[in-house]
């Protein structure tokens, strides 16, 4: 998927347009006791 975005590059605005790939990340859900 090609994405165009205005990003904050170390305090300066920068337009980027590039192919972006999705990378699935998994984590850990932990319930909190009251």
């Amino acid at each position, binding site marked *: 998927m090609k994405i165009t975005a205005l*990003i904050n590059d170390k305090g300066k605005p920068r337009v980027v347009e590039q192919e972006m*790939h999705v990378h*699935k990340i*998994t*984590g850990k859900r932990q*319930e*909190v006791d009251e």
Partner: protein
Amino acid sequence: MAVDSPDWTRPVWMPESEALASGTKFYYSTTAEVPATSYGEIDVATIAAGRRLELSFAAVSCEVSGIQRLRIKDDTFAFLDVWYDISKLVNIPYQMIYPVEATKTLKVQLYNYDAVARDVYIILNGVESYI
């Protein structure tokens, strides 16, 4: 500091919020590598029928500068879409409530536009309650 967090994370606090619904409170944390020119997508939770999730607080930490954009969304709506140069801890406003309706999935996306992979750590708090 959260359990299993890497050495380079910064301490975070979970403020109490009166707006927070009563229900099953949980926190979600992960450490991951976001490859070059890609975005990491975390499926935090898919909400069961008859329930609703409220995300109350989130924080992202990066070992070095690199992650430039963060989105918090479900299958339909983006609740938050912000651009940062995340080189330190970024706290997402905990006063805001991001409701996720039943059968939707809360997702967090971390965008890395750079040509090198970045390590990130993310933690967020939520409450899953009955509607």
